């Protein structure tokens, strides 16, 4: 038991310190995060468009409101797709 008591702080220090001595390690690019967030946004928007269509079929909203909201969502989805292309183009480059 006493050996374990002595070893515990040593083990903890040995586990924590090595990453501090790595050389020249910058954090992973922000771009991956941005692409990930954009893809998630795209998924949410597509699901929202499907739900909007579903609500129209259920008779919850008028044709005019449906069209207006669908157009807005489509515009945003298009912007997201362009942003994804731009980010992926950068990472390819």
């Amino acid at each position, binding site marked *: 038991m006493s050996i*374990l008591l002595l070893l515990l702080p040593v083990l903890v220090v040995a586990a*924590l310190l090595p990453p501090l001595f790595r050389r020249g390690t910058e954090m992973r690019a922000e771009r991956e995060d941005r692409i990930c967030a954009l893809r998630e946004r795209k998924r949410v928007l597509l699901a929202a468009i499907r739900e909007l269509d579903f609500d129209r079929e259920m008779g919850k909203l008028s044709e005019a409101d449906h069209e207006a909201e669908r157009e807005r969502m489509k515009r945003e989805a298009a912007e997201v797709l362009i942003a994804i292309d731009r980010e992926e183009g950068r990472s390819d480059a």
Partner: protein
Amino acid sequence: MNELGSLALITLYPVTLFGAAASFLGGHNRREGLVSAGERSLVVSFLLLTLSVLSLVVLFLKNNFSNAYVANHSNIDLPTFYKLTALWAGQEGSLLFWNWLLSLYGIAVLWSNRNRNRDLMPYVTAILLVSAFFFTNMNLLAANPFRPLVMDHAGTPIPYAPPDGRGLNPLLQHPAMVVHPPVLYLGFVGFVVPFAFALAALWTRAPGAGWLLATRRWTLFAWLFLSGGILLGARWAYVELGWGGYWAWDPVENASLMPWLTGTALLHSVIIQEKRGMLKVWNAVLVVTTYLLCVFGTFLTRSGIVSSVHAFAQSPVGHYFVGFLALGVVFSFGLIWMRREYLRSDATLDSVLSRESSFFFNNLVFLVSCFAVLWGTLFPVLSEAVRGEQISVGPPYFNRINVPIGLFLLFLTGFAPLLAWRRTSWPSLRRSFAWPAALMLAAGTILFLLAVRARYALICFSLSVFVATTILMEFYRGGRVRRRQLGESWPRALANLFLRNPRRYGGYVVHFGVVLLFVGFAGSSFNRSRAEELSPGGEMAIAGYTLRVENLEEGETPNYDFARARVVLERRGRPVGVYRPERRFYYASEQPSTEVEIHSTVREDIYLVYASTGEKGGAVIQVYRNPLVLWVWVGGIVLVLGGLICLVPMRREGPPIPKASESEGGAP
């Protein structure tokens, strides 16, 4: 084991500090080495806390009464099952357990975000470690579970190990109490994840609603556990405390209800931010408030600031909690204020008749309810500060405020799903409303004619019919669309409603659970009770039931002695069961306890308590007739099931559903 657990806690102290600093600096300077060291600190914290928890468990199992916590919460004859759960029976152990769960969440968050949200993760890690530091600090300085038991010998404290411990509080020796604290704590602690992500996103000015999407499931997960914990606590109170009810507006009950109210508001309002880019400040405030209320709830439970049935937990930890809460409030709300420009809404409210406005109303009502509960809970403390004496407001205050609020929320539960996003046309609303409103009025009229005169109960039953109808109509209309557009059979169409949009249809199941809960709550308007001393052969009647005591017995176990009555229960002359309510006296803790017996049906509960031994040597039996209590438990189960459905990943759909006119002749 005492030394090992203690050393693990002491080692944890610098690890959390180092990890928080490394994570923050790593994120700020974009140094992977520091970020990695911070994440390793979180893993090491988890391992050290696991070591501490296991050490304490071994001390309990080995009956090591030289440890003060073990000596105060266990005894040799305590069943092994309860020795394991005695870990969270007292303040020191439950704070250690809180911290361990926090580190467990930390590991899970780290693993699930190993390849995403990398910009946010250093700050998330830092916030988790700061929280862990706070609890470690408290465990070391104010509530150390590894403190040795000492006795005063001529002014000098010397270590002491009594031959037996003082035992576990009898009220905690119940299966529900084994599950209730961990489940509740998983809920409380779980809200640290959205809190950490929200602050990280605010700090880094992360674009979009990425943090909301990243934490949506975590929020729901925590909310589910909090809901389950509250229900298990209510169940425990009902079957163990022996006063015939399941909710007494006790400060500790309120402590769990307040974050539940704000958490429920949050679950609704995040949908608005996700869909419309609105309510960003509101959501940030709700996330912060919910987590701080969770910490505040733990403070209320553990500091003993307001007297309650849980007052066995009084101690000096209060100052630490106040310090942490003050820091949390200043830092979090300060950050929200500093980032108010970044939190500007992308859109405005188009119409009052829209889903988003109904969600906003629902949020306001939840917040009003939370504030009313907070005010009532803290009133004794405030009155003591102002007038020098503690004045409790009690259940009448809470019921007067919260019953109308609850009924309004119930109405919104049915009303909101009928509305579309942005705006709803009057013809559409009339069409959606016709059947639910007609059935609500019919139900109200029938109940009134059946002599139901309790005003709130009548409104509650009528609204329950309204909400249940709207939910059924949602399923019917949704299923009909799938059948028409995709040619699916009814069972397949209904199953696909869940699979294609689990959050929406799981949410409806949650709402249905809420309806059942409200029906159960309304039943309490018709509670009856009476008490009588009965000798063998004695009878008592209540609400169409007759109970007859057949015999009385007394006995002993190694843990307690007991007095028990064998009671035959009859309804309109026909026997419905034999029950054995019992009164116990626990040796180690020298405390009495009642073991109630309940005859439970869909219609009502007959609740039997062996209250005491009477002057004539008979048993004083207290009997309660509690209508519709079973609906509360079933409603709770349905609510949790609905929440679990919401957690199911959405199955990918094909192309958007075509218009009816586009799909004549069947669907693919």
